[in-house]
């Protein structure tokens, strides 16, 4: 057969564009300057603060030292809040994915023949951003209030004992986190699915793949990059979030997350070394978790 003549001609490797020009470096300068000023400098300042020891004479004053025990102390004191942060963030990420994926699929694929409805769908996903994050979270506090509509309905049908609080529970915090981060889940998945070739679904069906099988073997793997970006964009800020879990919003003393602890140490207790150590630990923890996750999901090119 005559096919051999044409095999092996496939690999047209893209030539790597590698040109160094002074203009490129010049263009990088503002960005580099910004990063040094607002990331590298505070980062080192944070490291130094985290190792300080209290001044023996003045309360609330700290001197530079190498007091690494700060880290041991904060882990011993706040491990529970740390674990709770990961648990709440993981749950919120899971719920955001369960709600966000079908929503992104609906907008990107089901509404594809109707560009106007598609645009409307996207606007509706983004619309909450037009109102302040704080206001929206406060609004949920009202909705979930003991005298509020949700508690009223639930207690009238007997699911909830009258007078039971919904706010201040793990439920309301995870709910708030899920609600606030859904757009960060929907948008990356949408952007992947918006360019998804529907003919692949037809090909899957044609090759004896039922809709469910075709989704599992074709659509889902091909949108994995969106799912991974979405989960990262949700999980990372959710771990450090201190608004939803705050007792002023949807949380209580029982739902304190690591962000609340850092806030309290910086602003209330004035224990700067402890707050700095917690911040750095949180950063390290997120890096390890995310690195492990991305490695496992086989998309290293994201990092």
């Amino acid at each position, binding site marked *: 057969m005559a096919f051999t003549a044409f*095999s092996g001609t496939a690999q047209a490797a893209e030539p790597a564009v590698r040109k160094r020009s002074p203009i490129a470096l010049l263009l990088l300068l503002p960005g580099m300057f910004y990063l040094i000023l607002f990331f590298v400098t505070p980062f080192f300042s944070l490291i130094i603060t985290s190792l300080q020891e209290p001044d023996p004479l003045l309360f609330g004053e700290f001197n530079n030292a190498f007091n690494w025990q700060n880290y041991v102390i904060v882990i011993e004191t706040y491990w529970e809040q740390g674990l709770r942060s990961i648990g709440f963030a993981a749950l919120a990420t899971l719920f955001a994915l369960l709600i966000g994926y079908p929503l992104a699929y609906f907008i990107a694929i*089901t509404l594809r*023949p109707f560009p106007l409805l598609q645009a409307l769908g996207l606007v509706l996903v983004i619309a909450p951003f037009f109102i302040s994050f704080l206001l929206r979270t406060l609004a949920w506090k009202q909705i979930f209030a003991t005298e509020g509509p949700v508690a009223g309905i639930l207690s009238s049908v007997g699911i909830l004992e009258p007078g039971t609080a919904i706010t201040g529970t793990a439920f309301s915090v995870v709910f708030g986190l899920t609600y606030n981060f859904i757009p960060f889940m929907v948008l990356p998945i949408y952007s992947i699915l918006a360019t998804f*070739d529907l*003919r692949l679904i037809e090909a899957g069906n044609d090759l*004896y793949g039922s809709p469910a099988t*075709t989704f599992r*073997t074709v659509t889902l793997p091909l949108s994995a990059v969106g799912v991974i970006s979405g989960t990262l964009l949700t999980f990372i800020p959710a771990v450090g979030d201190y608004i939803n879990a705050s007792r002023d919003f949807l949380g209580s003393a029982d739902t304190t997350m690591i962000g609340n602890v850092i806030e309290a140490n910086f602003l209330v207790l004035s224990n700067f070394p402890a707050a700095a150590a917690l911040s750095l630990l949180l950063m390290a923890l997120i890096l390890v978790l995310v690195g492990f996750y991305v490695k496992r999901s086989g998309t290293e090119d994201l990092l």
Partner: protein
Amino acid sequence: MTNNEVPQGGFAEAGADLELVGISKRFPGFTAIEELDLTIPAGSFFALLGPSGCGKTTTLRLIAGLEEPTTGRILIGGRDVTATKAYQRPVNTVFQSYALFPNMTIMENVAFGLKRRGIKNADSLAHEALQLVELDHLAARKPKQLSGGQQQRVALARAVVNRPALLLLDEPLGALDLKLRRQMQVELKDIQSEVGLTFLHVTHDQEEAMTMADTVAVMNKGRIEQMGAPQDLYELPKTAFVAKFLGQSNLFTGDVVTTAKSSIVVDAHGTRIEVPTDRAQLHNGRITVGVRPEKVTLHDSAPKADSSRNVIGPGRITDVSFSGVSTQYEVTVPHHGAISVFAQNTSISTLHRDGDQVWLSWSVGHTFGLADEAEAEPVSRFHADLDTSMIAVQSRKDLEAELEEA
């Protein structure tokens, strides 16, 4: 097999008959197919030929189960599959866009259908199919790493490996360059005769259809104009569309003036053109007759009267295009317009020049009479289906279908 199952295990022993009964397909705003009846016998290589937008791809998608017919029934091997979904039908498609799964290797792509049906030795069968298209050495690659021609062959292997009772080919060679296309045509033909499957090939390339298929159906505006062996279609087209779409034709329209037992005579603007009765679709009134350009001979002077030949002329050569083996002349004859002539370049002396006065003649036996008139451009057969409730129903159906897929 119950209604919700993927066909499990086993391969089609041989190709199956395909039968379309009264199929119509309406989309919001237009009708793609109207009352289509078609039977494709098992084991044949059938080509559906037509211009873009004639409904041929829609027909294919209906058979594959990717669209639902508005009316009518589809039978494969005698079994009514109209109500079944694409994944339940013993049919595979080679898509025009290849539609290879980019997340899988070539091997996984080819084994996909086998694995869905739970066939045990899927991997070794997939390797065999890849060997058939000579791509086994690339089994571990991803589709992106292959050239267009190679992807095409993978798409073919991915469909053929399932030994479907019916293999659908949607312009499968459209994206290939001429040389590779020729090779693939031969290859496809070989595979078809080797495995004895029923092939339904959709194309707009008349040459491809004629070289590959046993039976060609020419489709126009959602309807099959004519169906038959390629040489029969070419030698005896029945409609003006077929005469013009399949090769070239010179057509003349006039009234029938004499009807004899063996032939009829048409008077086209004063020229008498004789057609054998059995080659004419209509035998009285105003009819269109024609002849293929390569059947026409040029003469420098008025040819001697010969009852076995039709003569037109004199006319003037207005265009000469020399193409090596043959020369194409455009001859303008008063009242008849431009007539094409293909002349074999058998000797240099037969060459005519632009502006020469010539007469044309051809054998009565090569003349054909059409069932419709050439001049009158056929008015659109379908009324625009612009009724809003129709559009609403269709969009709703599409939406439901999408949701079901999700």
